[in-house]
């Protein structure tokens, strides 16, 4: 899933950024990719974001990609996609 947001106020934008970091990976300004969120996780994310944004001034968009489409993303430069089947330190 791709989440893009446009938030006017710096403080609120920071908050949105912080919440999204708990669910996915920051790809570029105002764009996050959240791989494989469960329905429950998605609802929780939406709820948390809705608490902070003001729909009159801000906007958040969720682009939900099917499994086939997720593989078709084309990238040039920027943030590498994190592999999520194992984390090693």
């Amino acid at each position, binding site marked *: 899933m791709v989440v893009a947001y446009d938030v006017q106020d710096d403080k609120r934008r920071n908050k949105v950024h912080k919440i999204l970091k*708990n669910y996915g990976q920051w790809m570029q300004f105002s764009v996050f990719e959240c791989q494989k969120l469960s329905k429950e996780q998605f609802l929780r994310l939406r709820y948390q974001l809705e608490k902070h944004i003001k729909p009159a001034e801000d906007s958040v968009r969720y682009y939900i990609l099917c499994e086939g489409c997720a593989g078709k993303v084309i990238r040039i430069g920027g943030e590498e996609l994190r592999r*999520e089947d194992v984390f*090693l330190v």
Partner: protein
Amino acid sequence: MAALYLMEQGAVVRKVDQRVVVELEGRTVQDIPLIKIDQVVIFGRVTVTAAATAMFLEHGIEVVYLTAYGKFLGRLQPPAPKNCLLRVAQYRASLDGAASAWLARCFVRGKIKNMLYVLQRSRREGAAIDEIFIQEIKKALKALEGAANVDAIRGVEGVASAVYFKAFGEMIKKDFSFAGRVKRPPTDPVNSLLSLGYTLLAKDMTSAVNTVGLDPYMGFLHRQRYGRTSLALDLMEEFRPVVVDTLVLACINKGILKPEDFHREFGGAVYLQEEARKKFLVQYETKKNSEIRHPVFNYQASYRRCMDLQARLLAKHLTGEIDEYPPLVWR
């Protein structure tokens, strides 16, 4: 869901928001959302802060502690499932000689059939495996059905494994040799990989057993011993050849690991070097997440999911919901 492996000595694991942040000498080296992980595996000297520990326990994420060399030390486990009736059924069967023998035979049957599968597949792919080995293992499979009690079954299992590991060396193509199984400690690279692989498998099997609500310490094939996860070892038998052995063979035969990736300790023990161990862990996780068709349920499932499914089948058998325990057998 993935495992987080921590091998850098001196690393610190912190909770930041709902994320896991790993620091090394004050630098952040990993920052991942908590929802991405379901298990934390720690090798040696790694610090987990109190806040992080509480967060893991709250979210049902278990923390497994191994020594820097990969020997199992213990685990920090979220509260056990409340299914006491299942555990009573397990203890009753475990103390009943006939029930234990019946189950032990299932586990060993699964293991021997899978060993046979690994050997025959390698032979088709060109390994020079003597027909005698195959016949010996088939003989053991027949003897197994006549074995009356758990001791006799252990005997058959021992014989079959001995034959299997005699043939195992023939499947290794590259600049490695294998003369037989050596453990505690392993004294050659192949044995060292097998030992590490079995440790990883045992930790995953234990968590599968825990998830279902069975008691990992009370087994059927393996004798009860203080601090030994006998049931996990029982259920692991059928997975050993297809998960760990084939993985070890692939790592060596495909040249993923090379002789210089190992070093010999004082006293003869052989272990993997740090970087090579990371490679092996990635291979292990990839294998665990690779999908196969489960023979009973007939749908695609990862090996990790199969471990849970087998534990669940065992639980269903113990509580009398199904008559059979079908071990996971490859064809």
